[in-house]
């Protein structure tokens, strides 16, 4: 238990860095979902199960879906036309 928590902190820093360094937004969606999953495991290890549950729902499901919707709206819509 004394080893797994520092490892999870370092893993969180790595996955957050990956979200920034993946420049293509379509691939960044996957990085964001993985970052949410890593944060969920970290929160559970930090004795915060309720926060981990909401981070699992929001950070690794809802927010990537929002990004996908925004990418779809940008892709299917020619600039300048109102819909």
């Amino acid at each position, binding site marked *: 238990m*004394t080893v797994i*928590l*520092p490892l999870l*902190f*370092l893993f*969180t*820093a790595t996955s*957050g*860095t990956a*979200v*920034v*360094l993946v*420049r293509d*937004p379509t691939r*960044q969606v996957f*990085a*964001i979902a993985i*970052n949410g999953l890593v*944060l969920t495991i*970290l*929160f559970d290890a*930090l*004795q*915060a*199960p*309720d*926060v981990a549950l*909401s*981070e699992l729902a*929001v*950070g690794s499901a*809802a*927010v990537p879906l*929002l*990004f996908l*919707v*925004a*990418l779809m*709206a*940008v892709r299917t*819509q*020619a*600039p*300048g*036309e*109102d*819909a």
Partner: protein
Amino acid sequence: MSAVTNVLPYAVAAWLFGVGLYGIATSRNFIHLVGCLGVCQSATYVLLLGLGYRWGSIAPIFYDHPPGTPAVDPVMQALVLTDIVVGATLTALLLVLTVQAYKRGGSLDPGKLRPMRAGGQTDRDRSSDRGRPAA
């Protein structure tokens, strides 16, 4: 070992915030920028939970523990819960603004963003005059 583990949550929070700011400053795409802002926010989650954590204590649920057992700080967990919800709302709002800026300006690059004019006409619309509805 103990000094390292005491400092580690704050170091990770500072690192995440710095990396997120770097991503925001160097981003060439609004959608990527919103993702980098999410990394900045995850720094606040790590900072708050690191503040409230105590080694060797239980989660603040006393259903199967006697009252008085050492537990981590539940106030910080409530703050993080609020932070997560506010962060999701902020992401949704900024993505909607991104889509609107793309509709108006025709680009997702922050460097190509033009100031808005009366009537919603941008330089690009005036030069190409493509797809404007008759107002």
